C-alpha cells in the first residue's frame, strides 16, 4: 500500500523514537452478516510508544471499540477477516497463535471496559478475581497472590483494602468497582492498558478521580495507555496524543494540544466547534450537517466529504493518511490549504474557558 510507507516513517518520530511498543499497520476488520460482508474498519495505522498515553476518539460506530478489541483478538464469531498487522513488542498479534495470544492477553496487554459491573463476576469476591489473573499468568502461591492483591488495591486508592478484598462486587460503589477493574488489569504489570470508555458510566467527580489514577499509574509504572472515548475533554486531560477516527478510518493523529488548537481535518474541527464548552453561552452551536455514512453504503474517497464544508472535486479520490510534519498525520488532501478552527477560536467567550482564568 502506497500510503503505508510515509506513514511508517512519520509515526516513528511521533512516538519519540524508533522503538514503538506497538505498531498497527493496515488493520482492517470484516464481518459476515446476513446482508453480506461488512468492512467495519480499514487501513488503520498508528504506533504507541512505551508509557505513552494515546486517546482514540470518535462517535459511536466509528470503529474505535472494535479496534481496541482486535488488538486483543476479542472478536465476535461472525468475523470474516482481519487484515494487516499488529506488531507488539516482537509479536504480530494479528497472526500469532491462540496460545501465544493467551499469554499476552491480561499479562502484557490488559483491557478495562465501560461498565465494571458486567466485567466483574458477581459470585466471586473482588480479591479472588484480581488474584486469579495473577495466579493464572504467574502461578505464584495463593498467599503471595493475596499480598500482592492487597498492595494493588492500595495503589488504586481503595480505602481499607484488608476489609474490601473479601467484598463482592455488589457491595462496592461504581467508582470503587472501576478501581477494582483497574487493579485487576494492572496486577500483572502489563506494558499496555486498553481502556474503553472507562469513566462514561461514572459521575463527573468520580470520573476526575479515576482519570487521575490512570494517569498516575501509567506514569509511575511506564504502562502505555490506549484510551478509547467519545469525550474530547477526557482525552485532553489524560492523554498526550489523540487519534481521531471516522467511519472506520483514522483521519487524524497528532499531539493532543496540536489537535485541539489547530486541527487539520475538517471533521476534528467540526467536533471541537460543536462542543457547548467552547461556544458562547446561549449562542447557536455550530453543528456538522448530515450523518455518518452507513457501513453498508460507504462512499469512495473521503468518507466525510458529504458532510464537509470544504469538500471539492477530487475528494472522491482515495485519501491517504498524509504526513503533516511535526509528527502529525491527516487523511485530507486539502489540509495544507485549509485553516480550520480549533478549541481556542471560541475560548475567549466560552463559559468553561472563562472559568479557567479565575483562580
Amino acid at each position, binding site marked *: 500500500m502506497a500510503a503505508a510507507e510515509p506513514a511508517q516513517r512519520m509515526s516513528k518520530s511521533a512516538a519519540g523514537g524508533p522503538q514503538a511498543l506497538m505498531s498497527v499497520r493496515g488493520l482492517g476488520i470484516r464481518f459476515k452478516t446476513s446482508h453480506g460482508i461488512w468492512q467495519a474498519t480499514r487501513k488503520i495505522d498508528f504506533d504507541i510508544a512505551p508509557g505513552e498515553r494515546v486517546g482514540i476518539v470518535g462517535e459511536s460506530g466509528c470503529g474505535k471499540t472494535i479496534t481496541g478489541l482486535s488488538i486483543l483478538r476479542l472478536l465476535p464469531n461472525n468475523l470474516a477477516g482481519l487484515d494487516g498487522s499488529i506488531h507488539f513488542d516482537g509479536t504480530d498479534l494479528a497472526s500469532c497463535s491462540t496460545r501465544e495470544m493467551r499469554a499476552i492477553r491480561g499479562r502484557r496487554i490488559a483491557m478495562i471496559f465501560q461498565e465494571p459491573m458486567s466485567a466483574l463476576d458477581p459470585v466471586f469476591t473482588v480479591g479472588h478475581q484480581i488474584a486469579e489473573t495473577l495466579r493464572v499468568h504467574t502461578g505464584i502461591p495463593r498467599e503471595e497472590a493475596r499480598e500482592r492483591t492487597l498492595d494493588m488495591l492500595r495503589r488504586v486508592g481503595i480505602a481499607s483494602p484488608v476489609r474490601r478484598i473479601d467484598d463482592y462486587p455488589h457491595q462496592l460503589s461504581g467508582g470503587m468497582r472501576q478501581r477494582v477493574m483497574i487493579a485487576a488489569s494492572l496486577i500483572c504489570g502489563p506494558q499496555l492498558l486498553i481502556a474503553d470508555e472507562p469513566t462514561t458510566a461514572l459521575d*463527573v467527580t468520580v470520573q476526575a478521580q479515576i482519570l487521575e489514577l490512570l494517569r498516575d499509574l501509567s506514569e509511575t509504572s511506564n504502562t502505555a495507555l490506549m484510551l478509547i472515548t467519545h469525550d474530547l475533554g477526557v482525552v*485532553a486531560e489524560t492523554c498526550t496524543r489523540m487519534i481521531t477516527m471516522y467511519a472506520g478510518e483514522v483521519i487524524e493523529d497528532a499531539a493532543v494540544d496540536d489537535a485541539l488548537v489547530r486541527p487539520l481535518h475538517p471533521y476534528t474541527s467540526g467536533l471541537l466547534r460543536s*462542543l*457547548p*464548552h*467552547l461556544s458562547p453561552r446561549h449562542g447557536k*452551536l455550530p453543528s456538522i450537517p448530515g450523518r455518518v455514512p452507513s457501513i453498508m453504503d460507504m462512499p469512495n474517497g473521503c468518507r466525510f466529504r458529504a458532510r464537509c464544508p470544504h469538500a471539492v472535486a477530487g475528494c472522491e479520490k482515495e485519501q491517504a493518511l498524509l504526513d503533516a510534519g511535526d509528527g502529525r498525520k491527516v487523511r485530507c488532501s486539502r489540509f495544507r490549504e485549509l485553516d480550520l478552527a480549533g478549541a481556542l477560536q471560541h475560548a475567549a467567550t466560552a*463559559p468553561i474557558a472563562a472559568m479557567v482564568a479565575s483562580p
Partner: protein
Amino acid sequence: MMPQAAETSRDAIVSVRDLQVGFQTTDGRAVVKAVDGVSFDVRRGETFGIIGESGSGKTTIGRALVFLLKPSDGAILHNGVDPLAMPRRQFQSHRRDYQIIFQDPNAALNPRMTILSSVLEPLELARAGSKAERLKRAHEAMDRVGLALDLGERYPHQLSGGQKQRVVIARALTLRPKLIVCDEVVAALDMSIRGDVLNLFAELQRDLGLTYVFITHDLAVVSHISERIAVMYLGRFVELGPTEKVSERPLHPYTKALLSAEPRPLPSTMRGDHRIVLQGEIPSPIDPPSGCRFRTRCQYAQGVCAEKTPDWRELMPDHWVACHFADRPNYSPT
C-alpha cells in the same frame, strides 16, 4: 420551614414549596427521601437548569413537576394552582400543558408503531379536533422539528438517534405545552448531533414561548442553554442562581468541585491546574449525613456543619446558597 426561594413569584409558571418525595426501600424497612425539602420557582419563558450527580434526586424532581410522581410532602403549583386539587377530568387536560422528554428515545417510542402514529397518539388521546386537524397538527409538529414528512411511515429502528429524539420532541409539541421538562435529553446523542438538538430546543423556545426545566449531569450543556442553574446534592439544592454567577463565581464548595472536575477540551496551557478532586462518592440517601449533607466530602467542613443544617439564603441578588461559610473568604469559620 424557612422562607426558601422567597423570590418574586409574580411570573412563576411552576412554584415548588418544600417538596419532598420519598420511596420505600424494597424490604419496606426504610424510606429514601430522594427529594428532601426543595423550594424554587420556574419563571415563564426561561430555561431552568438542574444539575447533579446520579442519586442527587434531579430526575425525581423532574417527574414530580409533571406529576408522574406524587409529592410525599410540600406543594407544586402550576400557575399558582395546585393541580392535585383539580377534579380528575380537569387534571388530565391540565397535564397537556406540562410535558416531559426523557433521555433514551428508543425507550420512549413504541417499536411497532410508525413515527406518524406515535406523533399522533397524544392528539388522539386528547380527542383534539377532527381527524384531518389532528393530522395537520402532527405534520406541523414534525415539520417544526425538522423531520421530513415521509419519515412518518417509517418505524423507529429505521431512524438515527438524533432523528428519534426529534420525533419525541415533535410528539411533546403536538399538544402545545407551556412547559417541557427535559431529562438528560441529549446525553444519549453523539457529539456532532448534540449541538443540532440543543439548537432546536433554543429555536422552539424562541418561537413558541416555551419554558424548559433542563435536567442534566453535563455542566457544559446546562450552562450553555440555561438562564438559571440549580445545583443539587443528595436530595437538596445547594446553590441556585443566574448561570453566569453559578458557573463563574460559584458560592458552594460542591459547585466549585463539580466545575473543576469537568474535563475540558482545551490545550494543557489553557486548562490551569486548580482541580479540586473530591474524596469518595455521594453517600446513600437512605442515611444522609446530619447537618450539611456535603460535609463528608467537603474540605472546609467544620464542627457546625455536622450539627446544623445550613440556611438557604440569598447571599447575592438572585443567587442562593446553603453553606454556613459561603460568605467567608476561603470558607474559614472566623
